[in-house]
Each structure stands twice: as C-alpha cells, then as structure tokens.
C-alpha cells in the first residue's frame, strides 16, 4: 500500500450545505455527537446516529471511495477491537472451534464497540472532509478564545494545531521515503510475521524523529525571521459568521442526538 494515500482527514472540496456551514458549528456538532455516542448504550441508539451520519455524508456529497480511503488506516484498529471482545469468556456458548470458544455476550459486545468506534472515526472524518484545514484551525482558535481569559495561550494552541495539520502529510511522505530507502538496503518493512515487522519499525522511527526535530528547529528560525512574536496583536484575516444554515444544521443534529438518547432509554 502506498503510505501517502493513507493521509487521514483530507479535505474534500465541495459546495454542499455542509461545506458552507460555519466550521465552529461543525466542530461543536461533532463534539456533541461524540459525547452522545458514549452515552448511548444500545444498538437502536447507534442505528439512529448511524442513519444521521449517513444522511450528513450524503448531504456533503462525499464519495464512498474517499470515505474508504479515510477509514483504511483505522481498519486494523476496528478489527482488533472486534476480535478482542469476541473471545471474552462467559455466558452462552455460540460456537466452539478447537480451543477457541465464541460466546454470545462477546459477539454482541464486540459488534457494539466496533460500531461505536466506526461512528467515532466517521464523525471526525466528515468534519475534516468538509472543512479546509485553515478554517478548522481558525474556528478552533475562535472557540478557544474564552480560554485566553484564564491565561491559557489559546492562540498559540491553535497555531500548534495548524502546524501539526501542516506537517502530518509532510512527515507521512517522509516515512514513505525512509521505508523505500531502508528497503533498498534490504530491510523488511512489510509482510513477514508480527515480530519481523515490529523490528522493521525502528529503522523508520529513528530517522523520522531526527527529521521532525530538524523541521522544528528550522521552522522556529523561519517563524522568528517572519516577525512571529506570539499571538498578541495579530491580524484576524477571516471573519467567521453564523447564518441560517447553521441554525438548520444545528437543529437537525440536535434532533438526531435527542432521538438516539431517547431510543437508549427505552431499551
């Protein structure tokens, strides 16, 4: 697999309503979604949330292939989560395959946690798919503004997030390059047993750390040279403004979340 295709949360350009909703509304909605996700404890609730999410995906016009690309890197995590729960012992036996026994409770629990994790990843992905990174960090900075009153450097935190978003793809591409360089020297970085692969990670991690530190060092010099003096007194270039679209979107999200909580209560 080409590692640079794995870039998580790539923006998918578009003009859908979701693209035009204020990024602050989307961030709050995503947070609320995640909170409710962990409050709901039945498949019915998850189903309502999933349906809501599917509707939003359709609304945003994000193709399934793009969605799939975003999910691929976490697929492994989903499988592990499921497998882990599956073999929980106790309760009603379903199948016995040699030394392995699958219990009903484990299967149900595995399915539930996997579905929850999937919805969690999807909701985050939709936020980044429908929002350019610049607006995302602008909005985060704006939302955190009240923190500045508590002497928390909100602006600097937002800039840190911008820089993280800016450098993740660069570092991913560098990992790609390091892997190719190590392969050229005969290193095993894919295939093979788990142990072989784990050992193959070290020769990739070490140069990656060195590169990250070098980037950080040079970035600091470049920022200082470009008159960075901290967040105080900087120009705010983009004005964010709520509109009717935000009210509609927020109402729909609230309705879906309320419905899923409601379903959970009567289980």
């Amino acid at each position, binding site marked *: 697999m080409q590692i640079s295709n794995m870039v998580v949360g790539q923006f998918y350009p578009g003009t859908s309503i979701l693209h035009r909703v204020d990024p602050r509304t989307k961030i709050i909605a995503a947070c609320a979604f995640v909170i409710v996700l962990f409050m709901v404890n039945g498949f019915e609730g998850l189903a309502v949330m999933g349906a809501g999410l599917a509707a939003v995906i359709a609304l945003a016009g994000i193709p399934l292939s793009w969605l799939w690309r975003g999910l691929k890197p976490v697929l492994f995590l989903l499988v592990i989560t499921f497998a882990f729960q599956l073999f929980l012992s106790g309760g009603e036996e379903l199948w016995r395959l040699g030394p392995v026994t699958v219990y009903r409770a484990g299967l149900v629990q595995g399915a539930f946690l996997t579905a929850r994790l999937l919805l969690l990843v999807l909701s985050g992905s939709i936020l980044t798919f429908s929002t350019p990174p610049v607006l995302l960090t602008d909005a985060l900075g704006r939302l955190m503004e009240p923190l500045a009153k508590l002497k928390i450097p909100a602006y600097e935190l937002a800039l840190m997030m911008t820089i993280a978003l800016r450098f993740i793809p660069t570092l991913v591409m560098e990992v790609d390059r390091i892997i190719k360089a190590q392969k050229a020297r005969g290193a095993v970085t894919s295939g093979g047993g788990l142990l072989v692969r784990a050992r193959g990670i070290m020769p990739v991690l070490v140069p990656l750390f060195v590169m990250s530190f*070098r980037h950080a060092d040079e970035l600091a*010099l470049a*920022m200082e040279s470009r*008159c*960075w*003096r901290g967040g105080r007194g900087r120009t705010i*270039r983009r004005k964010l403004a709520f509109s009717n679209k935000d009210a509609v979107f927020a109402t729909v999200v609230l309705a879906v979340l309320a419905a899923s909580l409601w379903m959970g209560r009567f289980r």
Partner: protein
Amino acid sequence: MSTPIIHLNNVGYRYPHFAESEDLALSGIDLRIEEGEFVGLVGANGSGKSTLARLLNGLLLPTAGEVRVGGLATADTANLDNIRETVGMVFQNPDSQIVATSVEDDIAFGPENLGLPAHEVEARVEEAARRFGIERLRQSEPHWLSGGQKQRTVLAGVVALRPRVLVLDEPTSMLDPRSQRRFRDFIDELWRGGTTIIYITQLMEEIATAPRLVVMAGGSIAFDGVPAEFFPDRDLLDATGMEPPLAARLAAGLAARGCQVRPALTLPELVANVHAGSQT
C-alpha cells in the same frame, strides 16, 4: 558617508555548547554592505556562512563585536522587531519554512504577525502571489506543491513583509535545475527593484555574475571583491576550497590547449568568447 544597511564590526561568534573549546564559528568579521547591493556569499561546508546569515537579523547575537542593521545594533532587544522587518530570511529546506496549511495563509503569516489591517494583508498576499507566479495555487495545501513552488511560496511569504534586505541561505539546493534558474531570476528581479541581496550558495554559476563576492574560509572572510578577480586565482581557490564555475574551467582548459579563448565565468560569455576566437 551614509550608514550602511548592514555593518559588521570585528564580529565573532562561538556556539554556546562549545564554550570551553577554542573553536570560534566566526572571528574578526568586518563587513559593510550598502543598500541596493547584491552580494554572493560562498565558502566550503562549515566555513561559517549560515552562522553569519543568522547574525544578520538577530537570530544569533554576536559573542564579540557588533552587528548593525540600518544603524541599529542587533544586541539591543528593543531593535529586534525593527530588524526582523528589515532583513528577510530564506533558508534551504522549503518544507521546514511553511507554517500554514494553505499557500495564501502561509504568505499572510508574516503580515498578520505585524498586525496589519486585514485588507492590507490581503493586498500583500495578492501582490506577492502574483509576483512569484503562484496566484493559481493560493488555496493549495503545501504538501501537494513541487519543490520549486514551495520555495516560491516561502519567498512570497518573506517578501510580503517588504524587507529591504533579503538573506538567502542556499535557497536552491533542494530544487531541480529549471526551478533553480527560475528562483534565481526572481532574486535578480527583486534586486533590480531595489532590495539588497545576500545570496549564499554552493553553485558558483548562481553568483558568477554577482557584482560582489564574499568568500568565507574557517570562520573568516578570505576574499571580498568581484568574481572575475577571485576565480582565476588558483592559490586563493585552494586556500578556500572553492572551484571556479564550469564555464571558467572550460575556458581555461581550451586556452591551455592553445585555443584563442579569453577567460569567461558564464556560459553565454564563454560561447561569445569562443565565437570571437574562431572568427580571428
């Protein structure tokens, strides 16, 4: 005499981690650069070029002597804001200099730091993007750009601060030959527009036509003059570990074989000289 835009007076620098060692990264540097000059700065690896560059806008402060920018000493922290606005810096690796997640946001970073009004920031972004041929990439995310486009984004971000002096530390060493030439042409254009240029490079072709060449060796200035005086001087070349540009070596080689070729520093010059030689 007017105040030079850059003035180094007996400057020395020692990196702090090596305080106990005798090794100075720079020593005894005297350098005057007038506004509007183009200075090529070359020297072997470790000769102190980057250290010198970082002294010019107060990223490093001299451990001996004094660095003045437009008459203001870098050692006085009250001057630093002013000095950073006056002296713009472009470094080697464009990937480590881009801060923002889109080209236009990166160009805007400097002007935003100055706290300029939003419309003024917008105007400067617009102008810089157009000037360096990246106006169509304004919304692009940096990691999709080519090396040349990235380095032009960096240049636009620095020029948007309207510096009077531009210090470039091996800015083309990570670019392909065509992007190198394009980038170098943009620098010439800025120079003709009145910006003072200090251009550090390992490619002698890039400074062969510079009006002034400064050569560093072992943390000191070994030569300060015109390229045409430096490159024919075998002893000086050996002492500083430098090589003449390809065209100069070709011209010398041809002359040694008895061809009628006058010395040259650039390819066009060599072609003209060879042509003139074959006519006689």
